[in-house]
């Protein structure tokens, strides 16, 4: 799983968000390191929807334009947790105290 995908899914783990809110949440979660361009976000949202990781939760009309919110599917939740475990394991190799035999 790519890093931008991981943060996009992570942004949705506490509830549905619309496009701009996802961009902001991803930036917060990554400490400003991952800044999603809107064009990149919607390519990712389309692919994640096709893969069954997310789905449209609701749609409202704001200023005459459609604004849809996206939410994680159970499949997406599982994929996110699996990736989090992979990252945690990878981090543990470096951060755990090394006990060398005497």
């Amino acid at each position, binding site marked *: 799983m790519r890093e931008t995908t991981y943060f996009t899914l992570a942004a949705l783990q506490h509830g549905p968000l619309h496009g701009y809110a996802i961009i902001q949440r991803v930036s917060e979660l990554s400490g400003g390191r991952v800044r999603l*361009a809107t064009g*990149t976000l919607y390519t990712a949202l389309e*692919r994640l929807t096709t893969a069954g*990781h997310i789905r449209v939760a609701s749609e409202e009309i704001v200023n005459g334009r459609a604004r849809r919110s996206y939410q994680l599917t159970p499949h997406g939740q599982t994929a996110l947790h699996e990736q989090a475990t992979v990252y945690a394991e990878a981090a543990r190799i470096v951060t755990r105290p090394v006990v060398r035999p005497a």
Partner: protein
Amino acid sequence: MNHIERRYARLVRLYPARSPRDEILDTLLQSGQPPTLRETSALVLGALRARAGYALDRSPIRLAALAVLLYATAVDVLTSLPLDVPAIVGTPLGIAQYAVAGLAALVLHVTALFALARGAYRLSAVAAVLAVGPALVALERSGSYLNDGFWAAPVAALLVLAVNLSPRGERSNPYLWTALLPFAIVILPTGSGTVLTPGLFIEQQAMIVLVVAGLLWSAVDPRVPLAVAALALCDFLTHLTAVAAGAVVGGGSVAYGLAVTAVPWLLLLAAATAGHRRSLI
């Protein structure tokens, strides 16, 4: 509609109608910022990708199979051109001419092309495999087995079989592919230079253009560089066959020739792989 909204609206219109244009525009306007170079390039690339329609549920090699089938069909047209119909009608052994084999391969390749475009994958595989024999016989008997296009039929059959391993139910317009046939005869390395005087020059230049276009398009749709790589691979295999048959002599020139024909398809394959990895989630 203010100035910023107009600029964003122009960019969002690049997306196909099935895309959530309204929603994308809404998201862009919420930032309140004018389009930056980064945002503009992401929108243009996103729109091109949306129009290309490549996704994980699409076959990465179907386009390559169609392109090489078209190539093989174009080669068949040239090998079946010298068909002597009066000889077939008037003499008992008149049917024993390489153009008849070329015509049989042509019919089978057109069938395979139509079937693959329409999503009839099994029929396409049967026709493509059956076409290999007559296509190679026609080329060998016509004395042009070391010419470009010799490997088109076998490579096309392998690609169609590979598509059959994971059929995705995709369809495209078979008549569009058939309409491309005259261009394929002149543009692709079919050996049409022996029939059409400027053919060889056009083929050489067109292949360079195709390779460059394939490399550039890899950021949008990895199926295109893969299709061009498959065409370039046919060239390489023909050159390799010529070397193996001793038709190309000279130590340094042999290695140089092989390298020159290998570099395009290897580069395209690498570009297609990178493009496919970018499309992963």
